[in-house]
């Protein structure tokens, strides 16, 4: 079963979420058969043969001067052409900001269904079933694909990349595709607030989130210092985002981001149901709260009952000493 994987790049580098999607494609190919083809959109096609180490047998490159930055309509034309050219029965993307925008466009072009933000793909009796969270993780649905190719975006940090097969290189071919860049289009002219070292919430291994227990935006420095000591990204509850203490991009929960880090530390967060939905698939949850009856303790693996203004700085110091 021919599988096509969209390879996401930023600044000319393959992103880790693309290796996760390739890893899952390779795993599925073991039971469904391959080949696994990668499709890359960019301004140049340099250095992509190394995707062989990550699981691709062939790499199709769609190059266009407009592809140095994300170009939704153009990328969609290229990926749809690649799906047709390879006879793909399954097309995979990362559920990243690009994948979430691109995959629906490709699905609309191909006239097929798309399962978004999947957390597992299973092949049972030759039929593919995707499992995906809905309502920010309060429930899961399993969906089948009546149309072909099946399409899915994969939640970051859930699927494992393949162990690199060093020295294995993929064959690289230029992809023929039809796209008219002279039509009116959305043009990315730049980026702001460029990623300053810390990964995005959805791609973080460790998250430290703060809630109303912090009493004011100025006290978020406690959360930031703990996050720095842990190499973590800072999150926030809806209450503090709505109060204007933190930007919306930091919000974890049903009207914010759904996250599944290795370690989630909830500081001064009581645990409203819409917040719990967004973080309860984390591998390990630690809660620090002064109210022993706070709902957050019902989902936490480990709880510390106490005044966060005392516990958090002490925890930060203790973690610094570990290193």
């Amino acid at each position, binding site marked *: 079963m021919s599988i096509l994987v969209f390879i996401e790049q930023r600044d000319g580098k393959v992103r880790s979420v693309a290796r996760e999607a390739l890893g899952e494609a390779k795993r599925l190919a073991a039971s469904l058969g391959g080949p696994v083809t990668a499709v890359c959109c960019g301004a140049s096609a340099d250095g992509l043969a190394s995707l062989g180490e990550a699981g691709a047998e062939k790499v199709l490159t769609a190059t266009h001067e407009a592809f140095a930055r994300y170009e*939704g309509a153009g990328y969609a034309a290229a990926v749809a052409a690649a799906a047709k050219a390879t006879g793909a029965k399954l097309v995979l993307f990362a559920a990243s*900001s690009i994948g979430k925008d691109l995959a629906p*466009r490709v699905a609309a072009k191909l006239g097929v269904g798309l399962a978004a933000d999947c957390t597992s793909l299973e092949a049972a009796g030759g039929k593919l079933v995707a499992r995906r969270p809905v309502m920010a993780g309060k429930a899961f649905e399993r969906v089948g694909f009546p149309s072909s190719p099946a399409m899915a975006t994969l939640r970051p940090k859930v699927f494992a990349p393949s162990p690199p097969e060093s020295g294995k290189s993929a064959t690289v071919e230029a992809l023929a595709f039809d796209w008219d860049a002279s039509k009116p289009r959305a043009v990315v002219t730049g980026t702001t607030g460029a990623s300053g070292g810390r990964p995005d919430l959805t791609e973080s291994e460790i998250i430290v989130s703060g809630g109303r227990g912090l009493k004011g935006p100025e006290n978020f420095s406690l959360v930031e210092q703990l996050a720095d000591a842990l190499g973590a990204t800072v999150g926030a509850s809806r209450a503090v985002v709505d109060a204007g203490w933190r930007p919306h991009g930091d919000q974890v929960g049903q009207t914010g981001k759904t996250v599944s880090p290795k370690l989630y530390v909830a500081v001064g967060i009581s645990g409203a149901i*819409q917040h719990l939905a967004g973080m309860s698939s984390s591998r390990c949850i*630690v809660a620090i709260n002064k109210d022993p009856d706070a709902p957050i303790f019902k989902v936490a693996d480990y709880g510390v009952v106490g005044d966060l203004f005392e516990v958090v700085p*002490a925890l930060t110091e203790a973690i610094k000493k570990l290193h």
Partner: protein
Amino acid sequence: MLQVVCIKQVPDTETRVKVAADGKSLDPMGVTLILNPYDEFAVEQALRVKEQLGAGEVVAISLGGAGVQTTLRTALATGADRAIHLKSDVSAPDALAVAKALADAIRPLEPGIVWLGKQAVDDDGAQVGPMLATLLDRPCVSVVAKFELTGHTAKVEREIEGGREVVEVPLPAVFTTDKGLNEPRYASLKGIMAAKKKPLEERAVDLGPAHLERVAFELPPARKAGRIVGEGSAAIPELLRVLREEAKVL
């Protein structure tokens, strides 16, 4: 300029999920239905653009059973000029089926802007906007957090991992809105009264064959019971021990 806002009725975010007897859907008992929170930003931005231009029309469209008319009236009460109800009793239709029905309804309106929330908080698909734009063959920016219109060009910012992309878009175009784009207004009493008299057109739609088939709807696996490791900063040594030795996350 005519603008279209596509809105959806969804379960309130405080909803506690119960699986219905068919094992494939949400038990609707006791569930409060609301306007999808992300769609509030779409409605608000359409109204702001109309105010900026000093003219135009805002048309709210929703697909679903008879109940969605309540949500359409909410949009009318907030300031939309008229509403179109695409009637369908298909439960949880797939995104492409919805996008096709919306595209058919929207195409003849020739809107300058089509607005949608970035995703519905029930199915979390985030698909209908980019699909609709593709079917309409219009430029599209999803997850818009900032919007500025000058003449026929919009300069917008879109949330990406660790920052924002700045995008320039010629109209007509399709945008999906993120929280933080604006502060949605409340409907005034006058608005609510006026909404009752605004036109709401009903049209039956046939969604055609499904592109995805839901085979199960289930609760997440229960987390195993955790424990309180201690009180105050005295608990820290034990916390660090369990994080390293039991959970192996440090």
